[in-house]
Every structure is written in C-alpha cells, then in structure tokens.
C-alpha cells in the first residue's frame, strides 16, 4: 500500500461521519446474535458477576479462562472495530507508559508482569461489558431496569438516550458546519497542526451555546409529553410497572445460557487446582 492509500484509508476511518455511523451502529446494534435472544434481566445479572468478581481473583489460570470466554462472546456479538480499537489502544498505551516509567525507577520486565495480569483482568471485564451492551436492545434494557427496581427516571433516561442520540449528533454536526461556513479557518496549519486544532476546539465549544438552548427546548417538550402520559404517576405504581414489563419472560435459552456459564466457571475454577 502506498502512503496515499494509507492516508486515504485513515481519513475514511477517522472521519466524523464514520465515527457517527459506528456510534449509531453500536447503540442500535439489534443484529441477531447469541446474546440478543436472552432476557435482558438475565444478561444484566450475568454481567454484574463478570464485572465485579474478577477484581478479587488473582489466579492466572482463572483470569485467562475468563478472558477466553469473553473473547468468544465478543466475537459472537459482532462488536464494532472502532470500539475494540479504542479499548485495545487504551490498555496497551497504559501498559507501555507504566513500563517506561518503571524502567526509569530501576525496575525491569519483572515490574511490568503484575501489570500484564491486571491488563488481562481489565480486558476480560471490559470485553464482557462491550459484548453485553452492544447486543442489548435499549427498549428491553430500560424495561429490565425498571423491573429490577431501578428508579423510573434512570430507566427512562436509558431509553431516551438511545432514542435522542442520532438527533443530537445530527444537530451538533449541523451547528459545527454552520460555524465553519461563517468563520474563517486559519490558512497555515502551524507546527503539529496547532492552529487548526485550536480553531476546531473553539468552534466545538462555541457550538454548545446554541446546542444547550435547543436541548433545553427539547427537554421541556419531552417532559410535557411524559407528564401528559402520566409518567410520574405510573412510575410510582407497581401494578403499572408489572403490566408494562409483562412481556419479559424467561425461556429455555436463558436457562441454557445460565447453566453453560455456571459449568464453564466450575471448569475454570477447577482447572486452577490441577494446572
């Protein structure tokens, strides 16, 4: 690949449009996969285990077992490469910096070894969350939270956030574009593009002024619509919540998934004694 092609490829991959599309795809990832068939409540409880318990595990065999399980699920959940890339870079970068700094303080490769295991641990935990939250349907997710006893405001916010995201992104992009149309971009890019970067940051921050005003109007409309439907009353009414979330039912899929997870955990923890 020539340099031109590489820069073109990078341009395509890093453009605002690509990021926007990937975000929307991640947020609305309703593609059928292994995890979407499950009851969201089961997924949430399952996730709670894999988000908290690994922190207390120091056994290397068990940690690798957890990571393998998560890798498999992430593969099956078809997670967006952008998200995986951001995550991987973050983990690797952190390790690299720590390694360089510990070298300065007289450490060597041994110093980094515990950090590698910490990274494996963190990797397993973050992969679990990526797999779960890209394959969970926002509507179902919100209802599951409501059923599990979270405040109605919170569960509404989840559904609202997923709904409003494309609108917000679209509007934000338009405001930025209109600022750029009216403004004068710097002619020279300067050392390390600092002029361009400063210019874009100023545009970015100033764009929030109209955006805040527009969002204020929208949030008023939203709340008025909610209250017309009796949101506050309904949120405090147990029977209403039961009626609303009545469609959430456990099927053989959920039982099978839970059982397989438990058996896998037994295998991994047992392997710890043998290996």
């Amino acid at each position: 690949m020539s340099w031109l092609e590489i820069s073109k490829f990078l341009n395509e991959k890093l453009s605002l449009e690509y990021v926007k599309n990937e975000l929307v795809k991640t947020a609305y990832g309703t593609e059928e996969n292994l995890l979407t068939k499950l009851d969201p409540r089961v997924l949430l409880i399952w996730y709670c285990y894999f988000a908290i318990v690994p922190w207390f595990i120091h056994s290397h065999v068990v940690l690798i077992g957890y990571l393998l399980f998560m890798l498999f699920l992430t593969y099956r959940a078809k997670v967006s490469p952008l998200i995986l890339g951001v995550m991987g870079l973050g983990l690797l970068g952190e390790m690299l910096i720590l390694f360089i700094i510990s070298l300065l303080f007289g450490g060597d490769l041994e110093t980094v070894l515990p950090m590698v295991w910490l990274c494996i641990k963190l990797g397993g935990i973050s992969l679990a969350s990526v797999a779960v939250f890209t394959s969970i349907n926002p509507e179902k997710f919100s209802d599951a939270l409501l059923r599990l006893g979270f405040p109605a405001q919170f569960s509404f916010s989840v559904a609202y956030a997923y709904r409003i995201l494309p609108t917000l992104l679209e509007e934000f992009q338009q405001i930025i574009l209109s600022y750029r149309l009216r403004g004068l971009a710097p002619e020279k890019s300067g050392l390390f593009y600092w002029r361009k970067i400063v210019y874009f940051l100023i545009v970015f921050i100033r764009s929030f002024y109209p955006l805040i005003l527009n969002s204020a109007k929208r949030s008023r409309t939203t709340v008025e619509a909610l209250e017309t439907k009796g949101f506050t009353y309904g949120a405090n009414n147990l029977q209403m919540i039961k009626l609303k979330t009545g469609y959430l039912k456990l099927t053989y899929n959920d039982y099978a998934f839970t059982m397989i997870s438990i058996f896998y955990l037994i295998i991994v923890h047992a392997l710890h004694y043998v290996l």
Partner: protein
Amino acid sequence: MSRRKCAVLKKPYELTQSQKMMVFILSMSLYGLSNMFTELVPSAQLGVIELKIDAFAFIPLTLCMLFHPLYAAIGASVGELIFGELMLGQFGGIGEVEKFILFSLGMCIGGMLVRNPQIKSQVAIGAISGYGIFLVLATIVDILKVVVGVEEFEAVPGLAKSIFVVEGVEFLNDFVFSGTLFTLLPTLYLVPRLYGKIEPLLGMKPRDNKVHYSLTKVFTPKLIAISLVLTAIAFVTQAISESDFELGVWEPEFVETYGSQVIWVVIGVSAFCSLMIIGYLLRKGKEAKGDTNHLA
C-alpha cells in the same frame, strides 16, 4: 404588591417535579453527548505528559450554576454512564459507582459556590474548585484501585513509585490542561450568556442572588444514607481484596485430601453437561429454523 414580591423572593429556590426532570434530562443528554467525544478523541503524547481531554466539565458546571446544582450534577453523571459507558460498551463495574458519586459531588459543590451567576469571579472560583475537588478525589481513588488490583504491590520494586508518579502527572495534566481550556474558559463564556435566556425555555425564573437553597432539603437523610452505604461497600471490597482472601482458592487443602482425579472428574462432568446443553440448543435452533421455513 411589593410585599408579595418580597415573599416570593424569600422563598427558597425550589423546582417542581417536572422542572427537576427537565434539568435532569437537559444535563444528561448534553454531557452524555460531549462524553462520547472525549471517550473517542485520541490523546496526544508529549513524552510523559499526555495531552488528553479528560472531560468537558464546563457543561455540567454551567448547568449547575444556572439551575439547581443537585439535579444538574446527577443528570450529568447519569449521562456519562449511559452515553459514554453503556452505549460504547465501556462500563467499568465498581469504578463507575465511585466516579458517579465523585463527579456529582464535585459538580454540585461547584454549582453551590456560585451565588450570582453574573459575577465572573464567582463563576471562575466555582468552576475551578468544582473540577478540582473531583480530580483530587478521583486521583486518590485511582491510586487505591491499582493498589487493590495488583497482587504484592509493595513487593514489586519501582511499581509503587511509578504509579504515584503516573497518577500525579495525570492529575496535574488534567487540572492544568482540561481545567483551564475545557472547564474555566468555556464556563466563563457560557454562564453569563445563557443566564436569563435559558431559564424561560424551561418555564422558570432565573436564579438571583437573593435566592438560597435549604441545605436540609438537598441533603436528605436518604441521600446521605445511600452515599454512606456505597462508600462503606467500596471500602469493604477494598479491604477484602487487600487481605489474602481469594475467590478462586477458598480451600487449598481440597486437592490434597481428594487427589487431582476428583477435580478432573468434576471438569469432565461439567464439560459433558455443557456439551449436552449446547447439543440440545443446536437441535432446538434447527427445529425453529425448520418451522419458519415451513411457514414461509
């Protein structure tokens, strides 16, 4: 007439249920959106110093100064949780609870320090101290987290020092870089401009300097109890993992008494059961596919 006006002014700053919800939703969606960008924008490395946009803290701070600080602060934290973590699949478990409390606390204090949003010096002090309080607390928690996560923290030479240095540099960098460029200056730009313009859009009066909050209403016993319980949980989990307690090895004598064959048997049985379930699922899946084909 004038007496009635006086009575109105003396009333503590209170919002109705739907106004609280409006402030909450406004803060949530705006800070959430900005958080998505901060999660994705790459950082520029200048040697050890990492130029990174930590957070666009000016958004929650602006809203905390203009409206009721508590609802704006909690809204912002919820927004970060949903847009920045759940939607991008980067939810971090227990750490998020800590960040939620710390960030809300910092923003809330920042908003409460400002009595009159039109005085620039007050806005500046509020912005810097709100963000600063959050950063100091977050740095302490970060150091504790590595201490908890890494086995034999003290035993590894150089690791303890390097982590203090990394966290210290990161704190200074965040405070100087994000603190001025993305907190102080934008807040100074936005607050006086929005004051008096945004409130009518939500159907409320602008805050004025005679207005005061009743602290007992903001910090209800329930809120204090919940934060105390959460702090206690965080502390206990840290204490447990710092001691030798491990979930993976709860009975070391187990192997010696029964021999390793028993464990292999356990593994075999579990593997067999999982295979059975997978086989059952595959058959069921095929049947379901067959049914839909039949219907089609």
